[in-house]
C-alpha cells in the first residue's frame, strides 16, 4: 500500500528572491517571464492584492505604482539551484522521489510509517525551512491525486496543521465532509473545461466526483478522469514516474519502392518522416534541439550515378512542433538536393533531445536566449560537427542566427551561481 507525499514550495520564485534580498521583506514582488512579459510568480502580498497569475506586466502598471510592487526578471539559474537543493534534501527523506516540477516533488513514504507520516512531513518542512529558508507545504495521501489534494488543503489551511496535511490519519467521515467543501476544479487533472462539464452534470464538489459512477465518468469523459475518480477513493492508479532514459535520437527513414527524382517527392517523404518522429518525441514529452536530413541514391547499385548527402542543423529553439520541425527539415532538404539523381532513400533524425519543460513553464517558453547564446549555439554546432563528421554541419538559411536578445531588465544577481553575483554583506 503506497503512501504519497506531495511537497511543494510556497511562491517559489518570489521566495527565492526574498531569501537573498533583505530589502524585500514584506514587500509585494512579482517575477516576470521572458522579455519581462507576464507575471509568472507572485509573493503572498501580491496574491492578497488580487493580482492574478499570468497577467501581462504592462497591464498592471497602475497597481504596481500604487502598491509599490517590485518586479524581477526570472533568475532561472537561482531558481534551478534552489530547486536542486530542495530535491537533495527531499531525497534524504525517501529514496523514492519524483521531481514533478521545479518546485513540486512526490515522495513515496511507505516504510516510514513508524515515524508517523504527519510527523515525518513536519520534519521535512522544518529541515527545508532551516537549511534553505524556504517555506513548503506537505500533503500526504494513499494516492498521488489525494496527496495533491491534501497539499492544497495544507496550503489553504482547509485541513491539517502548520503546513502539513495527512489524509491517511483522517476519519472517513471527516474526509467526506472536507471533500464536500472543496470545488471539483481543485482536483489534479480537472481543468476548466472538465470542471465546467462536470458542473453541468451536477458534480460541483470533490466529494461528488469521488462518489460519481466510474463507468459513467469513463464513457462521458475519459479513462484518465475515471482513474482520477478511483484515486480519489484511495485506489492508487498512478505510480511515481519511473526515470526512463529518453531516446536520445529519433530516426525515421525509408527506402523508396521506386526511385524519386524530383524535389517535391522528397519533400513529401521528409515531411512525413518528420511528423512521425515528432509524434514519438511528443509522446516522451521531449523537445528536439537539432535535426538531420539525409538523402541518397542506391548505394547497392554502384553503376548508377551516386550521390549522398546529410546535413544537420541546430534549431534556434528546441521544439516538438511538427510544423516547425518540418519547416526546418524542408529547408535543409532544399540545400542538399541535387537534381538528376534517382534517390533511393531519405531519412531524418531528431537530435539533442531534451525533456519538455514542466507545467510551471509551459505557458511561458523558457529563455533559450541569454548573453552568450551565440556561444552556446556554436558549441552545439561544434559538438554535432565533432560527432557526425566535419562538413556534415552547416548553419541553416536565414533565421537561425538572427537571435533576439531577451529583455531581462530586472534580473537579480546570481547569488548562488556566479562568483560575481554573490550577495554582499556589510562589515560595518
Amino acid at each position, binding site marked *: 500500500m503506497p503512501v504519497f507525499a506531495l511537497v511543494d514550495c510556497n511562491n517559489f520564485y518570489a521566495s527565492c528572491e526574498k531569501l537573498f534580498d533583505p530589502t524585500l521583506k514584506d514587500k509585494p514582488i512579482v517575477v516576470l517571464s521572458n522579455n519581462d512579459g507576464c507575471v509568472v510568480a507572485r509573493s503572498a502580498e501580491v496574491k492578497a492584492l488580487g493580482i492574478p497569475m499570468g497577467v501581462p506586466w504592462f497591464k498592471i502598471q497602475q497597481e504596481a505604482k500604487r502598491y509599490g510592487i517590485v518586479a524581477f526578471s526570472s533568475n532561472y539559474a537561482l531558481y534551478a539551484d534552489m530547486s536542486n537543493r530542495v530535491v537533495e534534501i527531499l531525497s534524504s527523506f525517501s529514496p523514492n522521489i519524483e*521531481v514533478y516540477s521545479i518546485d513540486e516533488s512526490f515522495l513515496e513514504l511507505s516504510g516510514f510509517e513508524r515515524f508517523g507520516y504527519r510527523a515525518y512531513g513536519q520534519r521535512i518542512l522544518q529541515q527545508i525551512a532551516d537549511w534553505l529558508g524556504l517555506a513548503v507545504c506537505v500533503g500526504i495521501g494513499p494516492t498521488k491525486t489525494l496527496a495533491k489534494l491534501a497539499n492544497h488543503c495544507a496550503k489553504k489551511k482547509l485541513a491539517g496543521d502548520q503546513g502539513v496535511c495527512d489524509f491517511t490519519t483522517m476519519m472517513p467521515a471527516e474526509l467526506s465532509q472536507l471533500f464536500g467543501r472543496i470545488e471539483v476544479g481543485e482536483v489534479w487533472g480537472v481543468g476548466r473545461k472538465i470542471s465546467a462539464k462536470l458542473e453541468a452534470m451536477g458534480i460541483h464538489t470533490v466529494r461528488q466526483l469521488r462518489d460519481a459512477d466510474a463507468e459513467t465518468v469513463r464513457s462521458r469523459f475519459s479513462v484518465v478522469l475515471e482513474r482520477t475518480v478511483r484515486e480519489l477513493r484511495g485506489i492508487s492508479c498512478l505510480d511515481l514516474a519511473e526515470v526512463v532514459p529518453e531516446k536520445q535520437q529519433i530516426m525515421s527513414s525509408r527506402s523508396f519502392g521506386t526511385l524519386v527524382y524530383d524535389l517535391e517527392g522528397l519533400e513529401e517523404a521528409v515531411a512525413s518522416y518528420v511528423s512521425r518522429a515528432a509524434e514519438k518525441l511528443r509522446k516522451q514529452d521531449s523537445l528536439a534541439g537539432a535535426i538531420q536530413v539525409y538523402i541518397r541514391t542506391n548505394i547497392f547499385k554502384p553503376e548508377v550515378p551516386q550521390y549522398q548527402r546529410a546535413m544537420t542543423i541546430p534549431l534556434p529553439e528546441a521544439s516538438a512542433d511538427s510544423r516547425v520541425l518540418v519547416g526546418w527539415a524542408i529547408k535543409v532538404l532544399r540545400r542538399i538536393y541535387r537534381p538528376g539523381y534517382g534517390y533511393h532513400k531519405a531519412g531524418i533524425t531528431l537530435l539533442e533531445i531534451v525533456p519538455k519543460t514542466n507545467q510551471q513553464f509551459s505557458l511561458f517558453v523558457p529563455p533559450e536566449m541569454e548573453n552568450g547564446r551565440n556561444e552556446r549555439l556554436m558549441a552545439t554546432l561544434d559538438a554535432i560537427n565533432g560527432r557526425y563528421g566535419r562538413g556534415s554541419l552547416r548553419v541553416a538559411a536565414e533565421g537561425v542566427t538572427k537571435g533576439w536578445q531577451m529583455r531581462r531588465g530586472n534580473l537579480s544577481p546570481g547569488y548562488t551561481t556566479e562568483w560575481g553575483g554573490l550577495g554582499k554583506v556589510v*562589515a560595518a
Partner: protein
Amino acid sequence: MRELLMDLARVPGLFVPLLHAPRLPLPIDEVRVSAGFPSPAADYENKRLDINEYLVRNPVSTFFFSVEGDSMQGAEIFDGDILVVDKSIRPRHGQIVIAFVDGQRLVKRLFRRGGRVALTAENPAYAPLEIQEGMELMIWGVVTGKFKRFGA
C-alpha cells in the same frame, strides 16, 4: 538553460557549481609494479586534498557571500573575503553570523545572553548593534569559514 532544465527532470546530485565543484585530481591508485612486490607507498595513498571538503561541510545548505567593510577585522574577516555560510547550523551566542537587519545584510558576531540580543563588531571603531523591541532581525546563517584568491 536547457541544461538546467534537463537537470531538474532528473534525480538530484547534479551539476551545480557550488554543490558539486569538481574535486581535485582523483586518487593515485594505479601503481605499476612488477609481479609480487607491492609498493611500500600503497598503504599511505590518500586522495588529494580538496578545498571544497575542507570548507564546506553541508553543501546543500551552504552559500557564499562577499564582504565589504572592515568591522570584523579582529575576527580576521577582511574586505573582499568570501564567506562560507551554513544555514543548517543553529546560531549560538558567540558565533559569527550573517544577519538581515532593517533591510541590510550584515556580518557580525552574535551576542545572546540573559535576554539581551546584540550584534557586535570585531573592530573598536564600531559600536555593538543592540536589537530592540520592534527591530527586525533575522539570523540568516552561521559563518563557518572564508576564502580569498589573490590577484584577479
